[in-house]
């Protein structure tokens, strides 16, 4: 079925576009000299690892650098347009007291102790602070898909009230944000005793007794190499936009899937131009939005339509959509396609996807429009859920069992599956990518690890991520063989060299719910991109080494 794309380009977009373009144009005129400054506090004196953000008045773009060992910071020439800036900082335990310009043009920032430390904590810091066992805390990793833990821990609910809240949560779609809550057509399955156990635990760590009966622990600020980075955050024009997967094209434009609305988004970071392309609602009453965004060999883009069901192809040149609907006999109220893998569809004319409601995989034949069903877990007990997908050069599929502890391979010719359990039990592999050697890299969400699988040797290698309770969502291996990862929990971007074992974690300027991560290999050093799923922004991270 052919559907024309509807380009959304509201007045708001236009205002943002012109304002932003003007700023960038000024910036490009060479008027933007290097901006230097210094950050300190009464308690520490000069402070290393403070994220200093500058935002030109009225701009949707915020540029961030990190202070060095002597509290010094420097915005490189050209990174900011000339003019006046609003400054903000991120240094857990502190808040910005004042900013002052010296006669020589440098900026002096003074921090003071934060009045409300709890408001600054990442989910990871809540995990570390809360008393209780890992088993008690682990169910919370589902909550952070939609909101932060602060929201839970500031409640005063007792166990019974909290149980009612948790029951209500089971009625919401996983593609919900605080800005756009979506109700599922079919409630999630849950076991009452498990929800009651979780509710009872949460009632011991929230404010039901009047105060948190435990110290709030914080992670260390960035230091050394983690301070050598430039971060640019592009605010999107509506707060409801929930960028999930982000990728750049050959022209450097950034495309993103919107998790809660039927739009494909595009941002040109050079001009600031932002556009949204609407695709049709194919399942009225079902939650809107898409999750995975992948490209085929010709550069056209594919969306997995989540509860709208089916797959959506976007012809980039014609700017038109083609919707591949699920047939009625395969479609039910719980049907959900979260993933799509068209990268090798030129080999056999077939595109892989998943069917969450059946713990299964599907393959779309582009010629006939028909879907085949593959159920590798049919004879298996426990919980299974094929999630991240990647295809090899022959369009054989590798899939992550996000519900369990394995990755799998489906042979494109025979349709037979091979399941490889990960060395770490209950690892819950999530998103994945294939490197140039055909190795499969992936995030072990529940195990707090990243891993690689060698399909030739049929062996795994796993690494712990440096910060506990990170729960990595995705991985991307760049042209240098370095691995990049992020999560919904820590607000940190991991850069890891598997060869040396060395890693660095870059702190992001704001609370950032990280999903798919992407690296543009065309620059040196490489350029990292990610969407802020709850924060309606696109983030560019440029390491300075």
């Amino acid at each position, binding site marked *: 079925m052919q559907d024309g794309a509807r380009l959304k380009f509201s007045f708001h977009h236009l205002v943002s576009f012109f304002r932003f373009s003007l700023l960038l144009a000024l910036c490009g005129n060479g008027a933007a000299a290097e901006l230097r400054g210094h950050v300190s506090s009464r308690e520490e004196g000069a402070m290393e690892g403070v994220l200093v953000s500058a935002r030109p008045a009225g701009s949707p773009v915020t540029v961030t650098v990190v202070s060095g060992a002597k509290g010094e910071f420097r915005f490189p020439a050209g990174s900011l347009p000339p003019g006046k800036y609003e400054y903000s900082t991120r240094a857990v335990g502190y808040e910005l007291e004042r900013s002052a310009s010296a006669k020589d043009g440098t900026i002096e920032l003074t921090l003071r102790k934060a009045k409300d430390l709890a408001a600054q904590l990442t989910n990871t810091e809540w995990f570390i602070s809360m008393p209780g066992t890992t*088993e008690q805390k*682990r*169910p919370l*990793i*589902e*909550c952070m898909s939609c909101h932060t833990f602060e929201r839970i821990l500031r409640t005063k609910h007792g166990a019974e009230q909290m149980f009612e809240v*948790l029951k209500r*949560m*089971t009625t919401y779609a996983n593609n919900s944000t605080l800005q756009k809550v979506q109700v599922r057509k079919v409630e*999630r*399955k*849950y*076991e009452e005793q*498990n*929800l009651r*156990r*979780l509710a009872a635990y949460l009632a011991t760590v929230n404010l039901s007794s009047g105060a948190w009966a435990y110290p709030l622990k914080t992670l260390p600020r960035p230091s050394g190499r983690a301070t050598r980075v430039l971060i640019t955050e592009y605010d999107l024009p509506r707060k409801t936009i929930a960028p999930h997967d982000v990728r750049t094209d050959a022209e450097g434009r950034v495309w993103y899937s919107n998790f809660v609305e039927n739009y494909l988004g595009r941002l040109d970071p050079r001009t600031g131009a932002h556009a949204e392309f609407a695709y049709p609602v194919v399942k009225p009453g079902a939650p809107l939005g898409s999750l995975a965004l992948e490209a085929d060999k010709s550069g056209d883009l594919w969306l997995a339509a989540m509860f709208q069901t089916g797959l959506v192809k976007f012809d980039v040149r014609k700017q038109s959509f083609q919707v591949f609907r699920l047939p009625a006999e395969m479609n039910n109220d719980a049907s959900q396609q979260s993933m799509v893998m068209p990268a090798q569809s030129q080999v056999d004319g077939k595109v892989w996807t998943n069917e969450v409601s059946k713990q299964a995989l599907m393959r779309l034949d582009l010629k006939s429009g028909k879907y085949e069903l593959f159920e*590798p877990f*049919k*004879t*298996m*007990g*426990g*919980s299974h*859920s094929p*999630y991240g997908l990647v295809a090899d050069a022959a369009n054989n599929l590798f899939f992550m069992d*996000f*519900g*369990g*502890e*394995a990755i799998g391979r489906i042979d494109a010719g*025979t349709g*037979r*599956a*091979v*399941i*490889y*359990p990960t*060395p770490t*039990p*209950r690892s*819950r592999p999530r998103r994945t990518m294939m490197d140039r050697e055909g190795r499969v890299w992936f995030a072990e969400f*529940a195990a707090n690890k990243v891993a690689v699988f060698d399909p030739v040797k*049929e*062996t795994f290698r796993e690494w712990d991520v440096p910060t506990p309770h990170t729960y990595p969502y995705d991985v991307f291996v760049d042209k240098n063989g370095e691995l990049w990862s992020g999560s919904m929990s820590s607000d940190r971007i991991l850069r890891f060299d598997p060869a040396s074992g060395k890693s660095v974690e870059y702190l992001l300027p704001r609370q950032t719910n990280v999903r798919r991560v992407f690296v543009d290999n065309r620059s040196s050093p490489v350029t990292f991109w990610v969407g802020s799923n709850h924060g309606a922004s696109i983030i560019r991270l440029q390491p300075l080494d």
Partner: protein
Amino acid sequence: MRGPARLVAAALVFASMQALAGGEMGGADEHPDEGLVFFGFVKDARGAPIAGAKVTATMKSGNTFIVQTSATGLYRLPTFTYQLNPADVVIACAKEGYKQTRVIRRPIAKANPPKPVETECRMERG
């Protein structure tokens, strides 16, 4: 089932009961992972354990599960449903420098729910 093997099986079942899995809120992460367990050892001709051997379990459907043995030669497959007939699962083992000689399925005592299925794989150099 011999005494030590019975202990191993009990430990495996206990571990799986304690384990976490899933993708649905407040439920699957705490679901006891109950079901039919396949486990066993890969050993050489003298009965010494072989670490890092590849164990392949092939289902009637043609789907396979591939795991590696631990330092003690132990392997364990993911948990299956009780509806699966153990006779429909064929176990084989492989490692470079070795060839498989025997596969020994321990007699399965009738029980409800079914007990873990132990299958030993023997290999020799060559």
